[in-house]
Structures are given as structure tokens and as C-alpha cells.
């Protein structure tokens, strides 16, 4: 048996590893920017798709189907992003008699339309946030809704996900411009400019539930994940379990999630996202009809292999465990490592990774799509990979995370590693007191300030600069260090929406 992953980076490696564990051969596809990428080097087969731009490579459906035909692959896994959650692609796979590793096209479609899914959830009795019930033709429709629901509101790409194409609008004055850009970005990312609006619930947490359902009609929720630490609607750190979810709330969240999945006859791994309000009430946000970026924290705590389970389900296997078998052990935290500069407002930091040192020892897991010497192309999402740390309990996991981060080194591109280091010392984070806006407030309050050079740093620099025997030090890809102190400069860049 042979499985093709229509994706790149860490998620391609994750799925290939699941295949190896299951004795399934692997097929990689790649753009000209990725010929030397790790996911190609790990695969049993590899086929070129086209030039770097995603539309000509990882979104190029005919080329991907041809690659499957050429290598006699019988399974296709979309990973996340790119063609995941694209019903048309799922249908094209079925038409080509390929087993799509994921839910049915109808389920993808139903959940893919945020407005349609909202109506469906309301019907299924799953609570939803007030919002426009269909894509807005123009900004004026949104204004009407906003006047009723009141600002702030949130603009979302109807076909979107992962915060891409999302915009907060605080006043009517900004609405036209925001609508224009959100809609153009929606078109750019999802080839569908439809945008709708939602009332913004203030001070909520983002809690999601992992759902696994087989083709025999069994649906199980595998606990929740805490995903409130976000920046620009982009998850930064995820945990399992959530520090604020007790057994009772967990049960209610899980049954709501299973109900949501049942409403679309969901079969595969999927994730139901909820907003948890300070008063304990929660609202359906959306369902991600794919393997979630942060699935490893659930795997580490429940001792399951979601990636392998998803493939087994696609092959018609029954779930390998029942609700009763599931046992939670300890606490897991995932840090998303993006090639972006937290000290320049998270501006993308493409380049070549001149040095990569991964921590080892107990309780650490790496899902990473780059190696030392890898070049991070400007054409794709800048996530390099994920660091996952496990500990007997949450406080141990956080102490261990701090240790692991002290061993972690990436040079050549900037990453958010310094941010995670500071989180480990933050009282609110330690006590689990945060909502989805907390991280941005903390960043604005200077969470990242004060990385001034210590006397030890000066000694190290002096010893290195005066070492004639050393090969010429590789120049860092970053701008002059003196710029770092330039707050004016830092201000001068605003990262776009994520």
C-alpha cells in the first residue's frame, strides 16, 4: 500500500512516520523550492509538482493526481492548509479512485461554509455566537449587522480557517477598508472572496475538542485542548488538558463536539472549536475537518496515535480504542515555531537555518520540517515546526519546557523561542489565567523587552571575535543588532493579519 501526502514541512513528515509505523509506503510531492526539503528525503517516492508558488504546486490538483497515478499511490492525505478542507479536491480524489484520508466531501463542504455550519449547529442544538447568517455581498450589509450587534465585530473568510483572512473591526469608519482587504486575502488564500461577520465575544478562551469517528458509526471525543494563547487569531501555544476545564465541563464540551460531528455524519479525525466565555458558557466556533496542527498534545497525554488512527479509519478499520480505554496521563504543551521575528512585531524571517540544535532527554518531542542548512522559502506559511513537552503535571511540564527551551537553538532565521522562554516565567501563564486576547496585551506591555546583553554575553562575543583560528563567523541573516534597540524602527512595521 502507498500513501501520497499532498503537503510539505512538518506535517508531511508526521504523516510519513505514521505510515512507516503502519508499514505503508510513502509518496512525497514537491515544488521547485522544496527539492532538498526533508519531506522529500524521507519518502519512498517523490514527484515534482511545479514552480514554487502554491497555486502551481501544492494547490495544483491535476499535478497531484498525476503524481499519485505515476507512483500507484492508493491513498492521499492532504495534511492541513493547502488542499485540506477542500471538498472539490476530496471529490477529485474519489473520481480518480483514490482514497482521500479525511472526511466526506459533503462533511467538508458543510463545515467549510462558516455560515452554513452555523445554521446547522443551531439546528443541532449546539450554541453559536451571533453573526451574519450568510456571506456579505458588500460592506453595507456588515454595517447593518454591526449596528445591531454592536462593535467590535470580526470579519471572517467564509472558506477560511486558522485565523487567515480574519479582521477585527472596532468602528464603522474602518469597515470598508477592512472588508476590502479581508475579501482580497480570502481570495488569495482560499480562492473564494466570501466574507461574513460575527459579534466579538470579549475575554473568551479558545477551547477545542478532538473528535475521532470511524466508518462503523462510532464517534469518540478524545478530550479538549487549550488554545487561548493566540496572536492575530493565530495559535501560538496549545495545551492538553486545559487548566480551566473540570470533568463536568469536559463532559459537556465533549458531547457538544460529538453532536456537532454527528450533524454532518463525520467520519475521520476532526476538531470542534469553541469559545469559552468567562461565565462558563461556550459557543461553537467552527469545525476543522482535518488533522489539527496541535494534535500532538492530545497524543502525548492520551497515549494514542491520531495520525495513524486517521489513516486506519480511511482504510475502513474500526477505532482501535473505545471511550473507556482512554486514560489521561500528565500534561503536554506545544509551542509553534515560526520563522518570524517577535522583536519586529513577528515580521516573517525567511532565510537559511545556519544552526539548529534540538533538545533531547525525557519529555520532549519534535515535529519539525527543517534541518540545519535548510532554506525557509518565502512562498509558504512560515511555521518551521512544533516543540511538544510532556510532564507528570502542568507545573512540571512548564518547568521542563523552560529547561528544554534553554537547550533549543535556531540561528539564521528569527523565531518566537524567546517569547516562550518569557511565558514560562509569567505568573498569569503559570496560574493558567489568560484569554484569547491575553498574549497580545502582554506583548504590548513589553513581554519581550529587556534582552540586553549581559557581561557574560560580552565575554562570549570577545572570545569569539578574538579567536583567529576560527573560520569567518557566518553573518547572521538578521539586520544590524543596533537596530534592535530602535523602538521607533520596531514601531514602523505592522505585521499583516494571520
Amino acid at each position: 500500500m502507498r500513501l501520497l501526502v499532498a503537503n510539505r514541512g512538518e506535517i508531511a513528515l508526521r504523516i510519513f512516520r505514521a505510515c512507516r509505523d503502519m508499514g505503508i509506503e510513502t509518496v512525497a510531492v514537491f515544488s521547485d523550492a522544496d527539492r532538498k526539503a526533508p519531506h522529500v528525503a524521507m519518502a519512498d517516492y517523490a514527484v515534482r509538482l511545479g514552480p514554487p508558488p502554491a497555486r502551481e504546486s501544492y494547490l495544483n490538483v491535476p499535478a497531484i493526481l498525476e503524481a499519485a497515478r505515476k507512483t500507484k499511490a492508493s491513498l492521499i492525505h492532504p495534511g492541513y492548509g493547502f488542499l485540506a478542507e477542500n471538498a472539490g479536491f476530496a471529490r477529485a480524489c474519489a473520481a480518480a479512485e483514490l482514497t482521500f484520508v479525511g472526511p466526506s466531501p459533503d462533511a467538508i463542504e458543510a463545515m467549510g461554509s462558516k455560515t452554513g455550519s452555523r445554521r446547522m449547529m443551531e439546528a443541532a442544538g449546539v450554541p453559536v455566537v451571533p453573526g451574519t447568517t450568510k456571506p456579505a455581498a458588500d460592506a453595507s450589509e456588515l454595517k447593518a449587522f454591526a449596528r445591531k450587534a454592536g462593535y467590535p465585530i470580526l470579519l471572517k473568510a467564509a472558506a477560511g480557517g486558522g485565523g487567515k483572512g480574519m479582521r477585527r473591526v472596532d468602528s464603522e469608519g474602518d469597515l470598508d477598508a477592512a472588508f476590502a482587504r479581508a475579501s482580497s486575502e480570502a481570495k488569495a488564500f482560499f480562492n473564494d472572496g466570501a466574507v461574513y461577520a460575527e459579534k466579538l465575544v470579549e475575554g473568551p478562551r479558545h477551547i477545542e475538542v478532538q473528535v475521532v469517528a470511524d466508518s462503523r458509526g462510532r464517534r469518540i471525543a478524545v478530550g479538549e485542548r487549550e488554545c487561548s494563547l493566540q496572536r492575530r487569531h493565530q495559535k501560538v501555544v496549545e495545551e492538553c488538558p486545559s487548566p480551566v476545564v473540570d470533568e463536568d465541563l469536559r463532559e459537556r464540551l465533549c458531547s457538544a463536539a460529538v453532536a456537532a460531528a454527528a450533524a454532518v455524519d463525520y467520519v475521520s479525525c476532526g476538531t470542534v472549536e469553541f469559545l469559552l466565555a468567562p461565565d462558563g458558557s461556550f459557543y461553537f466556533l467552527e469545525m476543522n475537518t482535518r488533522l489539527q496542527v496541535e494534535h500532538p498534545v492530545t497524543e502525548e497525554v492520551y497515549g494514542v496515535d491520531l495520525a495513524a488512527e486517521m489513516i486506519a479509519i480511511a482504510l475502513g478499520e474500526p477505532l482501535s480504542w473505545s471511550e473507556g480505554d482512554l486514560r489521561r496521563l500528565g500534561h503536554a504543551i506545544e509551542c509553534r515555531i515560526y520563522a518570524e521575528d517577535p522583536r519586529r512585531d513577528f515580521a516573517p524571517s525567511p532565510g537559511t537555518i545556519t544552526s539548529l540544535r534540538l533538545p533531547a532527554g525525557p519529555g520532549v518531542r519534535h515535529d519539525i520540517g527543517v534541518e540545519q542548512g535548510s532554506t525557509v522559502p518565502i512562498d509558504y506559511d512560515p511555521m518551521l515546526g512544533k516543540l511538544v513537552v510532556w510532564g507528570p503535571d502542568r507545573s512540571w511540564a512548564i518547568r521542563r519546557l523552560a529547561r528544554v527551551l534553554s537547550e533549543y537553538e535556531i540561528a539564521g532565521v528569527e523565531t518566537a523561542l524567546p517569547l516562550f522562554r518569557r511565558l514560562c516565567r509569567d505568573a498569569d501563564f503559570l496560574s493558567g489565567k489568560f484569554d484569547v486576547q491575553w498574549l497580545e496585551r502582554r506583548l504590548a506591555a513589553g513581554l519581550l523587552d529587556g534582552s540586553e546583553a549581559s557581561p557574560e554575553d560580552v565575554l562570549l562575543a570577545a572570545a569569539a571575535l578574538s579567536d583567529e583560528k576560527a573560520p569567518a563567523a557566518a553573518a547572521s541573516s538578521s539586520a544590524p543588532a543596533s537596530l534592535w534597540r530602535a523602538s521607533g524602527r520596531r514601531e514602523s512595521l505592522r505585521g499583516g493579519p494571520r
Partner: protein
Amino acid sequence: MRRSVLFLEAGEGEPIQVLVERRGAGCRVAQRDRRDDVDAVRLPDGRYSLILEDGRQITGRALETSGGVRVIRRGESSPVAISRGRPASRPLAGAGAEGGVEEVRALMHGRIVEVRVGAGDRVEQGALLLVLEAMKMQNEIRASRAGIVERAQAQAGQTVEGGAFLLSIRSENI
């Protein structure tokens, strides 16, 4: 006994001289009023391990940058404004603080999507200057201060390298 002279920029005033005397495997580093004898070795992966007299051990990587050195150590990445030669000029940001001209440069390789201002335009602090797209993200570059746009070389559609000059703003004397 080889000796090298380095210059440490301490923000204000003249850069401080740092003397390094190589002594066998180690070296003596003199800066301001402090002097350290350190045993320093280069590790196989290019990092340095220093052992101070009291036994303290410091391991880290030093990356030379145009402004000095970036030290990566214990998961932290700190800029050290130290260099082999006397720094040519004060950092731009200083100028920014004292008024005068601020240069706006591309902070990463990317494509200019739109340009909102031209030479001679007056801009307020926070005004949108241009939009740069990289890694499928649209980055709005805004003015960090009020002033008059002087040179404006950026053009929509153009691809620029990180550090490329885009435009400059002269602040008005209040």
C-alpha cells in the same frame, strides 16, 4: 602573546575599548573596570565554551552582524554592540530620537503591493506608507513619526531584498 582590541558600544557616548589577550587556550578580557581570565574553547559545532575563574561555565554562539555580534545562549538571543573596529556611525534609531531623517527599509525579502505616499507628501505618525507582501502576509508599513517624505524609491510590484531602502521621512522642527 596576541592581543586584540575591540569596541563596545554602550548606547551613549564614545564606544568603550575592550582588550583581549590570548593566553594559551584561554584569554584575559579587560573592559571598563572589570577583568576576567577565561578558559575559552571552540566546540565542534562552532559554539564557544567559557570557564571563568570561579568555575562558572558559559556556552553560546556568537554571530557577527554589521552592528556587532549576536550571542545565542540558553535559548535567548541578545545583541552585543561589540565590533573589531570602531563603529562608523550612531545607530539610525538614535537619529530618529533626536529628530532629523529616518530611513524606512524593507525588513525582509518580499514584494511591494502598494505605495501610498510620494516624495514631498506630509505624513502623520502611524500613517500607512506602503504594503509589503512576504510569505503570503501583507505587512502595512506605517510612519513611526510625523514628517515630510523625502526620497521615495519603492514602486508597487517591485521585489525588494531585506534591508533595501524604501523611502525616508524628514521630521519637521517643532
